[in-house]
C-alpha cells in the first residue's frame, strides 16, 4: 500500500468518526428538542408542578437548578482555582504532589450515587444540615472541585514559559506574575472548563436525590429574605432540581401529562446547558480581550 493510499484511508476513517459523533449528538439533541419543545411555554417555565392534575409547570425546579449551580460554583471556583494555582506553581514535584493529584483524579471519577449516599450519611445526617440546597451544593462540590483544580492547573501550565520568565525578569513577585500575567492568559480556558463542569452539575440527579431532596416547599417568589423558610433564596431549604424532577415524574409521576412534562423539562434542561455554554464561551473571549487589550 502506498503512503498516499494509507493517508487517504486514515483521513477517511477520521472523517467518518467525526461525522458519526456529530450525527449522534445532532440526533440526540433533535430527539429531545422535538419531543419536548412543543410543551414549553411561559406558563410551563414559571408555574409550580401539580401532583395529580394536568398542566403543572417546572418553575421552582428550574430556579432550584440555577440557584444550586450558583451555590456550588461559589464554593468550588475559589477553592478550585486556589488549589489549581498551588498545584501548578507552588507544589514541588514529588511523592506528596503525585499523591494529591491521584486523590483529585479518584475523587472526580467517583460514581455520583456513591457521592449522594456519602452526602446523606455525612452532610445531611452527621452534620445535621438536612435535605437542603446547601447539602446538595456540598455533595456536588465533591466531584466538581477536582475538575476545577485540574482545569485551573492545566490552564496555568498552558501559559508559555517565556511569559512567566518575562514577568519575573522585570522583578515582579511570583504572586503578581501569577495574577497579572498568567491568569489573564489562562482565564478563557478556566472559564470554558468551568462551564463544561457546570453542565455536569446542572444535569446531575443521583448525587442530589439524598442531599438536596426530592421535594420543594411552597415557594413565595415575592419573599426575598434568605432566612425565611418559604423564600426561594434560603439555602437551607429542601430543593428538587430539574434533573431530579425529570427522574421523579418519569418514575412515579401521577399527573396525566407526566410524560409530556418530562419531555418538556428535558428540553429545557438541554437548552439551558447549551445557552450556558455559549454565553460562557463568549464571556471568556470577552474577558480575554478586556484583560489583554487585544482585538
Amino acid at each position, binding site marked *: 500500500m502506498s503512503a498516499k493510499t494509507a493517508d487517504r484511508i486514515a483521513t477517511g476513517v477520521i472523517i467518518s468518526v467525526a461525522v458519526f459523533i456529530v450525527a449522534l449528538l445532532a440526533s440526540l439533541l433533535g430527539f429531545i428538542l422535538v419531543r419536548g419543545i412543543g410543551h414549553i411555554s411561559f406558563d410551563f417555565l414559571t408555574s409550580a408542578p401539580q401532583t395529580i392534575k394536568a398542566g403543572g409547570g417546572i418553575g421552582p425546579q428550574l430556579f432550584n437548578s440555577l440557584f444550586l449551580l450558583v451555590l456550588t460554583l461559589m464554593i468550588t471556583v475559589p477553592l478550585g482555582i486556589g488549589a489549581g494555582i498551588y498545584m501548578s506553581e507552588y507544589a*514541588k*514535584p514529588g511523592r506528596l504532589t503525585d499523591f494529591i493529584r491521584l486523590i483529585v483524579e479518584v475523587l472526580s471519577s467517583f460514581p455520583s450515587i456513591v457521592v449522594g449516599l456519602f452526602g446523606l450519611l455525612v452532610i445531611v445526617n452527621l452534620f445535621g444540615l438536612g435535605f437542603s440546597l446547601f447539602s446538595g451544593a456540598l455533595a456536588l462540590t465533591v466531584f466538581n472541585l477536582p475538575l476545577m483544580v485540574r482545569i485551573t492547573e492545566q490552564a496555568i501550565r498552558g501559559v*508559555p*514559559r*517565556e*511569559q*512567566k*520568565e*518575562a*514577568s*519575573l*525578569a*522585570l*522583578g*515582579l*513577585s511570583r504572586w*503578581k506574575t501569577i495574577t*497579572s*500575567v498568567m491568569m*489573564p*492568559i489562562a482565564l478563557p480556558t478556566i472559564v470554558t472548563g468551568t462551564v463544561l463542569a457546570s453542565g455536569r452539575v446542572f444535569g446531575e440527579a443521583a448525587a442530589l436525590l439524598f442531599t438536596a431532596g426530592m421535594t420543594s416547599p411552597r415557594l413565595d417568589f415575592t419573599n426575598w429574605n434568605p432566612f425565611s423558610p418559604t423564600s426561594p433564596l434560603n439555602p437551607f431549604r429542601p430543593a428538587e432540581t430539574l434533573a431530579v424532577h425529570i427522574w421523579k415524574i418519569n418514575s412515579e409521576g401521577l399527573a396525566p401529562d407526566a410524560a409530556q412534562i418530562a419531555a418538556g423539562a428535558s428540553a429545557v434542561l438541554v437548552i439551558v446547558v447549551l445557552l450556558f455554554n455559549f454565553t460562557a464561551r463568549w464571556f471568556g473571549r470577552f474577558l*480575554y480581550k478586556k*484583560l*489583554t*487589550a*487585544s*482585538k
Partner: protein
Amino acid sequence: MQATQELGLSAKDLSVYYGSKQAVRNISLDFEKKQVTALIGPSGCGKSTFLRSLNRMNDLISGARVTGEIWIEEDNILDPRVDVVLLRQKIGMVWQRPNPFHKSIYENIAFGPRYHGIKNKKQLDEIVESSLRKAALWEETKDRLHQSALALSGGQQQRLCIARSIAVKPQIILMDEPASALDPVSTAKIEELITELKQDYCIIIVTHNMHQAARVSDKTAFFYMGDLIEHDDTQKLFTNPSQQQTDDYISGRFG
C-alpha cells in the same frame, strides 16, 4: 576593590548542573559597564545556561543547581539571602522569541514600573514614551499605544520587549539570541539598538551569528562544552585568536 567601579557584573567559578550533568564548568568572567559582551559557541555549549544563571532564571528549572559566585557591585547574587525579586529588577532580559505580555503596548511598558511603585499617570506616560524612544519604537507606536502588543510585527515586538526591560531601569541587560527569530531588516534595527544602548548599560548577548558578535560586541567569550575557551576583545578574538579551538570555530570548521 577599585575595579568594581567599572565592572557591571562578575562571575567567579560559576558552575551549573542539570541533575548530575554539568552544563557550565567553573567559569570566571567579568563584564564591564558600557560594553557589549558576546557569548558565542556551538549549540549546547552552555552559553545560554550561563546567561540564565546571571539573573537566577535557572531557579525556575527543577533539578538545576548553580555554584560559584556572581557579583553585582557589593552583592553576591547567588547568596540565598539575596532578594531575587529586587535582583531581577537590576537585570533586564530579552529572549530569543519576542514575548510581549498579552496586554496593550502601553501596559507592556508601564506594568513593571507601576509594580515598583510609580503610580502617577504622568510619570508612567513619560516612562512609556522614553522607553519606547530608546528602543526606537516610539514613532511607530505612539498612535496606538492602547492596542494589543500582539498586533505588532516580530521585530517591533522584540524592540517592545527591550523597551519593557529598560523601563524598570536595570543596570545590566541579558539578551539570549535576540535577533535569531527576526528578518534581516529587523535584525539590523536590533543591532543598531544594542550599539545605542551600551552607552547606558552593561549588555551581555548570546548569539549564534558570528558576524553579529563581531558587529555589536566589544568583548567576546567563546564557550565550548561547558568550558570558557577564550575571552578577549572582539577585534582580537576574531582576527587573532590565541586558542586553536576558537580559530576552528570562528573560521567555520565545526559547530
